[in-house]
């Protein structure tokens, strides 16, 4: 039997895996990275960029707030007045928990994987609201370009510290690029504004020993796959069924692996049912095969909202491996 790591690599090169890769099994995720991202249930707070967040009680997650003058950028042409890069933690104390975790990873089986969020596109809308961010790409392209360069610079500075401290083998990097049925921006616009930023960022990681670039976007983004490849993404995590996954595998599999096929909303819900989950796992495994494809719920972390789903999905994938290998 192949190790988890070998099995993944076989899957990614379209070789001979001996079973399906089970969701996130190949990564050991180092969430202790001092990103400065906070999760404060039931509270309202400002983060290190000055973005106001709210996580109302009883709700599933947190939200950036932009009304009542709270957006960090009120006027994109004047972003320099209100946007300042946060200070990056460099002390050994701040990185100690992450380092301890990195050192404890069983690298024979798993990839020591750092977590990074939010991505460049998400940062633009967290700073000024989605509508303003999207319209600014048309109305003030130069200012947007400058802002994106500045955000990219910050990411690269953070990456340099992170690589130096932890020597990660993989990165799970979030940036949601679309809704369920379309990308947020056109491929042309993506190529102009976001591709150059990601080429720089992912090249830096690759040049510094990071073997696997896993990019999360749980959305439609089939129209962006050529740019994902150009940016150096090895695995697109979050691919939804609204993309034609078999076609993507066929067309691009040799260059990028697709991880998803199980929409978290339809498997991970209050009082989820085994039959429903099992059927979806069967469908996705059968439809997409075991080359260049990893069955996984689309959410960007190996965490469930409702107890037991992740283990049950794994169980169903095991059954599919028995049946199909």
């Amino acid at each position, binding site marked *: 039997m192949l190790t988890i790591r070998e099995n993944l690599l076989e899957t990614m090169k379209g070789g001979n895996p001996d079973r399906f890769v089970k969701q996130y099994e190949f990564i050991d995720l180092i969430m202790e990275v001092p990103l400065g991202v906070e999760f404060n249930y039931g509270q309202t707070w400002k983060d290190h960029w000055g973005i106001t967040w709210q996580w109302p009680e009883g709700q*599933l997650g947190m939200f950036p707030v932009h009304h009542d003058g709270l957006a960090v950028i009120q006027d994109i042409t004047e972003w320099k007045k209100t946007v300042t890069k946060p200070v990056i933690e460099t002390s050994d104390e701040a990185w100690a928990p992450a380092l301890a975790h990195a050192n404890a990873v069983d690298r024979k089986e798993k990839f020591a994987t750092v977590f990074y969020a939010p991505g460049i596109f998400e940062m633009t809308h967290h700073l000024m609201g989605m*509508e303003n961010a*999207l319209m600014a790409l*048309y109305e003030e392209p130069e200012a947007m370009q400058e802002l994106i360069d500045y955000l990219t610079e910050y990411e690269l500075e953070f990456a340099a510290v992170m690589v130096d401290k932890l020597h990660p083998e993989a990165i799970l990097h979030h940036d949601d690029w679309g*809704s*369920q049925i379309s990308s*947020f921006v056109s491929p042309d*616009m993506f190529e102009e504004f976001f591709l150059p930023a990601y080429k720089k960022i992912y090249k830096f990681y690759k040049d510094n020993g990071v073997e696997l670039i896993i990019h999360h976007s749980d959305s439609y983004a089939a129209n962006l796959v050529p740019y994902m490849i150009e940016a150096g993404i090895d695995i697109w995590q979050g691919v939804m069924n609204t993309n034609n996954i078999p076609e993507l595998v066929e067309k691009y599999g040799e260059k990028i692996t697709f991880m998803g096929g199980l929409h978290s*909303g*339809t498997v991970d819900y209050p009082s989820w049912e085994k039959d429903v989950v099992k059927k979806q796992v069967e469908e996705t495994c059968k439809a997409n095969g075991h080359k260049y494809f990893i069955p996984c719920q689309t959410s960007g972390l190996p965490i469930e909202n409702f107890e037991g789903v992740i283990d049950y999905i794994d169980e169903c994938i095991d059954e599919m491996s028995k049946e199909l290998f």
Partner: protein
Amino acid sequence: MSKIEDVKVLVETGKSKKVAAAVQEALDAGDKAQDILDAMIASMGVVGDKFSAGEIFVPEMLIAAKAMSKGVEVLKPVMAGDGSSSLGTCIMGTVAGDLHDIGKNLVVMMLESAGFDMVDLGVDVSADKFVDAVKENNNVVLVACSGLLTTTMPALKEAVQTIKAAYPGMKVIVGGAPVTQEYANEIGADGYAPDAGSSASKAKEIICA
């Protein structure tokens, strides 16, 4: 090319800085305000269709809607008091527990461009708030509810049923990524549209039914 044609092209391509002047020129050239408005509504229809077809994306739609609103500003004083062009008031919001608003905002823009007077209640709107808004506003003909989380689909159901209980004849349209036509039928909504582009024609169809 006629002045009205200029306006149409400017709206479709989202040239918000140039539309106002073009509308003024059309008025000066003797075009009727109502005709100019109808032309802009038609342009937004084209924009909506292109969005539904995946030919354009959210930014293109946003700037087109913004361009139209700049044009409407010029027409407003000319058309003041002339309520004939309105399709009636539509109350819209994202349902309780749900804070996503990008999709809802696009639908608000499309319905507004189609001729509805929109009252946007924002996000996390309880069923009772929808009912209050129907009570407090004039000439409400439609309530539109958006829900993006599978976990808030019950809130969508509650909203529809509470509105229907309070105002049995009120038309309700629902949408949002996890919503389907079947689900809309199941919870007793009058209509559903999969995207902002098709929401306007669906909304008009419902209120005429």
